[in-house]
């Protein structure tokens, strides 16, 4: 029915005998593949004689008797009527059962050897079709080749399934003895349009034959054929002329030649280039033939093709990689559309006729409409605007609808305002346009026309309280107002989502009024325009809410990813590190990061974490982690004191800023609440100004809350660990008491022994020595017990490391009057460390005592204490040149109760306790020793 609206198709191009000479090439490619046992996909734009090539191949295979071969076009299946006729090609309405039953019946009908045993019931599913076809082939005495044409005329889901079936049959039979199977499929559709996987699998098993346009040779044969059938003569230049004009497009050649012949009527003329020129002109002005019309429909209905066509119209030739080709598959939709030609990595419009056809049939109003259908809003606005500029003001309602739709689908409000601005500019090209968005304090300019349209160049936000500005007055005014600025009159319309006096979300300012393009020609126009802007305002508000929702959702997603990484840490320092690592990763603008604590009494800020991510180079302080806030609070200090975040786009404009890193330009700082108190802040810095966004701030605030909980947890865990340690200490103390008791218990016996010795007049030096030894042991153990009791008052604080070590040396030296030279190398360092002073001192004293006790000879007793630094720790090496520890026991020295001193089992408690103290401080204590050369204990305490 619809076909009758168009002239009959002349697409069946056949030469007088057989195929055109150069089409033979494709024929032999197909036959060669089939003979080699391969499947083939023959693809190319319409009207290139593909069907004839397939039919010839089938005849030749049948003739050669190697194959049972059949040709079947999908458009010739017994199907319901065509539907979607406005798509670029009619697609037939058919269900799976009819499709496969119909196809099988045709195949069976055409296979000579089956005719006698033909089944009368046909497979209704793809699977049944496959089984029936497999059986049929297995019973064949020859290979079977099925040629299926016009793939694009069947519904794509069925085509994809069919390709899957063909591939499956091929794969099943390929190594079976007996008859094999080859499928040759043909069409003008890109396989990327069949989104199911089946299609791509058929690609993998088939050779591609891409059928190109006619060569000159073929064109000559076509001219000869048409002229022979019409019984007209032609000049020898006809074919070369047509080649130049059509680029070898067989349909165009046929249409133009036939038109030229019709123009001649019964006159006995010869076809010449001049007559063909007349025919071309007529062709361009007459209603289009079906194939050309379908090709143009194909371009219009596919936004990517449309976009390519417009780019090529504008630029002539364009490289592949600058065209919006939506797939990587070859051939792509551009290759399969008759209007284009691929030439050495570029595309161009095939010929001048196609150029003119596209210009004529792709007018701005239509293009704008088609782009709108495809959701290409910017392009749609632009082309509809062109149509308006060309005087087609009837497209204005369409343009307004496009603007509203564009705003509705905007992902962010800036984009939405741009659509509104561009849209209004397109609708009223000679009018200047300013758009403002309102926030808490300002009217923010988001869009303004190019300078050529306006004298009003507002770039700064207008404070809402500046009532001297007509924009501010208009905001709370009626639906629209007029104002004159520098002798120009402006129309100001608040962007309200509801009735007058409802809260406006922004303002539209139009200048350059009183032109034929202005909306202010009649009051009713203005009212209509105000109504449109209300719809636009609703859409803008929605875009804004959507954006906020989206941002919030993204932040929540991120927080959900970050928090487990922070929460899994039980160690305070690890919590800090995890927080900073995550923030540095998720806030793209951040170059440096740290966590800052505030000591309000001492008026200092301390950078408690961030050494790796925070390369301080500015603080004039011995300890680079300390910031004095006596003069200025610092942004972090302000954040902690005011308990609110600060996003500073340029730190040098902030009077509170204290520079720690010279390259920092912008900073973002949020408070870390710990048990409802704020004593710390999370700080990120950037080398660029304006590096951070409100989204970054929101993310940081959420993470800071989690960080606060994690810090609290880590502290509690640390307390619990300490309690555990105290319990263990108490246990050890009990052991020590037991040891004292043991030592003391021997004293009465020794005294008795001594008395006996004295009474008997024996030498008492031996029992006296034993008594003295017991007394010494008792002294030493009780001293340690006192230490434990003292250190039971566990308290972490900031301590100067040098002072701590010096104190330990002093006490040790006092307790060991033997001359030992002790050297302390601080190596220019004197850090403040956060430790329990008494415990660490006890640890150091234990190490020193061990060193003292390691010396066997009098000379050259040397203890060296060396302080160093690595990325995470302060490193304190205590090295002696004593007798050393044998390698076979070195691993046991930290074990509870271990001792090398046989006379006294108390010695082992020392090193076990020392390592425990180190671990409680998140540090390490290790030993390295060479027998006869000395021992080195290494204590690492976190920075």
């Amino acid at each position, binding site marked *: 029915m619809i076909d009758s609206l168009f002239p009959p198709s002349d697409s069946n191009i056949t030469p007088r005998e057989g195929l055109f000479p150069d089409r033979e090439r494709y024929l032999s490619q197909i036959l*060669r593949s089939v*003979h*080699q*046992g*391969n*499947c083939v996909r023959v693809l190319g734009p319409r009207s290139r004689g593909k069907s004839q090539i397939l039919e010839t191949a089938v005849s030749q295979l049948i003739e*050669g*008797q*190697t194959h049972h071969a059949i040709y079947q076009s999908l458009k010739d299946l017994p199907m319901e009527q065509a539907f979607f006729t406005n798509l670029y090609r009619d697609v037939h309405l058919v269900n799976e059962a009819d499709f496969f039953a119909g196809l099988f019946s045709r195949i069976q009908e055409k296979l000579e050897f089956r005719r006698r045993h033909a089944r009368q019931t046909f497979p209704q*599913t*793809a*699977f049944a079709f*496959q*089984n029936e076809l497999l059986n049929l082939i297995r019973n064949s*005495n*020859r*290979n079977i080749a099925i040629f299926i044409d016009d793939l694009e005329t069947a519904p794509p889901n069925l085509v994809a*399934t069919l390709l*899957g*079936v063909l*591939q*499956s049959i*091929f*794969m*099943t039979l*390929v*190594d079976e*003895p*007996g*008859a*094999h199977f080859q499928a040759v499929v043909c069409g003008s559709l890109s396989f*990327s349009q069949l989104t199911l*996987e*089946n299609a*791509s*699998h058929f*690609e*993998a*098993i*088939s*050779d*591609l034959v891409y059928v190109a346009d006619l060569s000159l040779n073929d064109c000559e044969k076509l001219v000869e054929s048409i002229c022979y059938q019409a019984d007209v003569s032609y000049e020898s230049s006809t074919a070369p002329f047509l080649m130049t004009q059509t680029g070898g497009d067989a349909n165009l050649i046929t249409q133009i030649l036939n038109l030229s012949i019709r123009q001649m009527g019964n006159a006995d003329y010869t076809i010449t280039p001049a007559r063909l020129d007349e025919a071309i002109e007529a062709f361009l002005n007459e209603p289009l033939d079906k194939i050309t019309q379908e090709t143009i429909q194909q371009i219009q209905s596919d936004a990517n093709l449309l976009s390519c066509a417009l780019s090529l119209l504008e630029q002539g030739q364009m490289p*592949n*990689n*600058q*065209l*919006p*080709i*939506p*797939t*990587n*598959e*070859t051939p792509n939709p551009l290759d399969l559309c008759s209007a284009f030609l691929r030439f050495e*990595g570029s595309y161009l419009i095939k010929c001048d006729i196609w150029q003119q056809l596209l210009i004529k049939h792709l007018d701005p109003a239509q293009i704008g409409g088609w782009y709108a259908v495809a959701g290409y809003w910017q392009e749609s606005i632009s082309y509809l605007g062109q149509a308006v500029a060309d005087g087609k003001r009837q497209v204005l309602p369409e343009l307004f609808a496009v603007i509203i739709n564009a705003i509705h689908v905007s*992902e962010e409000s800036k984009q939405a305002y741009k659509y509104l601005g561009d849209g209004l500019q397109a609708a009223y090209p000679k009018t200047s346009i300013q758009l403002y968005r309102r926030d808490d304090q300002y009217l923010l300019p988001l869009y303004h026309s190019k300078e050529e349209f306006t004298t009003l160049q507002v770039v700064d936000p207008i404070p809402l309280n500046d009532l001297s500005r007509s924009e501010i007055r208009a905001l709370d005014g009626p639906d629209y107002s007029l104002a004159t600025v520098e002798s120009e009159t402006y129309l100001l319309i608040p962007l309200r989502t509801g009735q007058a006096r409802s809260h406006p979300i922004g303002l539209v300012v139009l200048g350059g009024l009183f032109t034929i393009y202005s909306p202010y020609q009649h009051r009713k126009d203005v009212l209509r325009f105000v109504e449109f802007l209300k719809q636009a305002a609703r859409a803008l508000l929605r875009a804004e809410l959507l954006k906020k929702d989206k941002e919030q959702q*993204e932040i929540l*997603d991120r927080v959900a*990813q970050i928090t487990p990484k922070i929460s899994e840490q039980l160690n305070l320092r690890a919590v800090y590190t995890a927080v900073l690592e995550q923030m540095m*990763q998720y806030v*793209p603008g951040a170059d440096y990061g740290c966590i800052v604590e505030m000591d309000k009494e001492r008026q200092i800020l301390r950078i408690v974490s961030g050494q790796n991510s925070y390369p301080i180079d500015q603080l004039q302080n011995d300890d680079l982690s300390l910031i004095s806030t006596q003069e200025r609070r610092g942004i972090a200090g302000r954040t902690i004191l005011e308990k609110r975040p600060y996003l500073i786009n340029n730190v040098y404009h902030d009077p509170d800023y204290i520079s720690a890193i010279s390259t920092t330009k912008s900073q973002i700082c949020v408070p870390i609440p710990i048990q409802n108190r704020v004593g710390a802040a999370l700080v990120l810095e950037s080398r660029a100004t304006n590096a951070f966004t409100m989204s970054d701030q929101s993310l940081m605030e959420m993470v800071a809350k989690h960080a606060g909980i994690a810090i609290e947890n880590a502290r509690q865990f640390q307390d619990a660990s300490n309690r555990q340690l105290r319990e263990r200490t108490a246990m050890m103390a009990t052991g020590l008491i037991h040891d004292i008791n043991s030592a003391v218990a021997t004293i009465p016996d020794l005294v008795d022994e001594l008395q006996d010795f004295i009474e008997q007049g024996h030498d008492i030096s031996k029992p006296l020595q034993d008594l003295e030894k017991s007394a010494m042991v008792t002294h030493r153990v009780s001293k340690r017990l006192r230490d434990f009791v003292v250190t039971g008052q566990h308290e972490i604080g900031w301590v100067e490391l040098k002072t701590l070590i010096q104190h330990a040396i002093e006490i040790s030296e006092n307790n060991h009057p033997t001359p030992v030279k002790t050297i302390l190398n601080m190596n220019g360092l004197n850090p403040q460390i956060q430790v329990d002073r008494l415990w660490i001192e006890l640890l150091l004293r234990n190490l020193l005592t061990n060193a003292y006790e390691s010396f066997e000879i009098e000379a050259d007793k040397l203890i060296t204490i060396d302080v160093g630094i690595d990325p995470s720790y302060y490193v304190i090496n205590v090295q002696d040149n004593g007798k050393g520890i044998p390698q076979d026991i070195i691993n046991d020295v930290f074990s509870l109760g271990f001792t090398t001193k046989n006379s006294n089992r108390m010695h082992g408690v020392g090193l076990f306790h020392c390592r425990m103290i180190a671990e409680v401080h998140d540090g390490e204590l290790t030993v390295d020793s060479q027998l006869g050369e000395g021992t080195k204990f290494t204590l690492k305490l976190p920075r």
Partner: protein
Amino acid sequence: MIEFPVGLHVLITREQIPVTGPMRVGQFNVFTADFSAWRLFLDKQTPCIWITAEHVINYDSEELVGMLHKTCLQEGWLNNPLLVFIDGRGHHIEALLKKWTTQFIILDGLAQADLEKADFPRQIILKRAMRSRSLVELSPYEINKPVTGSAFFGRQEHIDDVVRNPNRSYLFVGIHRMGKTSLLKEMKRRLDKADPPKRGRVRRVYIDCTVVTTQDDFLKMLMSQLERTGFTLFGKVNTNPDQYMDELFAHYYEVHGGTITFLLDEFDRLLTHMRQDWNIVQKMQKAIANQQIRLIAAGYRNAIEITINEQSPFSTVFTPVWLKPLSPLAIEQLVLIPFNQLGVAIEEPQAFIHKLQDETAGMPNYIQHYCRILLEYAELMSLNSLSVADIQKVHEDARFRGFLLNSFMSNTDLIEQAIVYALVIEKMDQIDRLAMTTLVDRILTERKLTLTKEQINLACQNLRLAGVFTQEETHYKFAIDQFQKMLRQERDVLFLFERAREALQTEKILA
């Protein structure tokens, strides 16, 4: 004393070609020659038809061609090449045959005399074959269909494993075009050879699961080949499935005389449609436990899923095997032997193989593409040797570029494509392994695509499995050196990224 055509005798004695026969087929004596050692297009069972002087005297060329034609149709010899030895002149016969098919290699009296005189007789055969075939067509390189027998290279360890463990079920996991179908077909062949089924019995069944969507389809598919020899359980199961499904596999085990091996190709598709209420799966599990059947399946994404998903009914059935890229040694065999046979020498073979491995990441299908294009180039330019520099020709070949991009599309999903496009836009050739997720996240976020770390990690892993990335010591890089360049040259990558991003946003909203 067996009489041979002169030329065939030369091949037996001087090329050590194993030959069996003759048997009388139609009017001719036919030998079967095993050319598998040549590693070219001629296979293990190449028919050699002998047209004797008597035939030449008694029949004219048309009649002889008619007889040949009839014989070949009868015997189903139309799918592989065959040799025709003619004791006399064969020019006319060759011309007539050529019109019909290119399967025949004619060795007439003159050619056979040449064979006798030649230092390298196989060169004479190849020259003859080249009258109707190109160099590529003489090679074993197939890109559009599975290969078995002498054309099958590598994967020996997997085949040995399957043959040695007759009751174990295997799941071969590999990307699209990794050679899974060829492997299954070759396994079927080798299993049948190692433990031949008795006449009329079937022990190994190859099943392509592409269009299997229901349990009924699957059942029919399993049974279709086992029923071909006349067993009729199929009809009964069809009418009363519950009663017969229990005894199904035991029945086939009995009638076919041993464990039945089902080789399931396109297993991913089957898994897509498989539902929990498919009783057949439980029956199969039981039959596998009873050693009545075993499964050898091949797939990719869904197959990976069942190896890690404990809920899957197949999770305990299979021994999973990852199909890895070919080793340098396998590549060497795949390339050097056939090239040498075809008279195309490779200069600096080690460097050549190294470069090939580097550029193809050891993917069999890529290597075969390279080999085909290089052979075409050698033939076009009449070259007797190829060097490393000639590999450049492959990059210029439009078919290869198309193949590379198509393979990428078919082996990756939207997230993976988006990641690759983003990296290509950023011109990042290699990425630090440890920082991979962070880096990818950053560049995607900058382009307004938010993915979870888990999604990014999984996608990067899949890209490695898909052969898009390769893992080096400290970083990932694109496996195929040329890939990025080609993508940039051929497509507007920014546009492709935007399309992928839009599609992913939609998925996210729907989720």
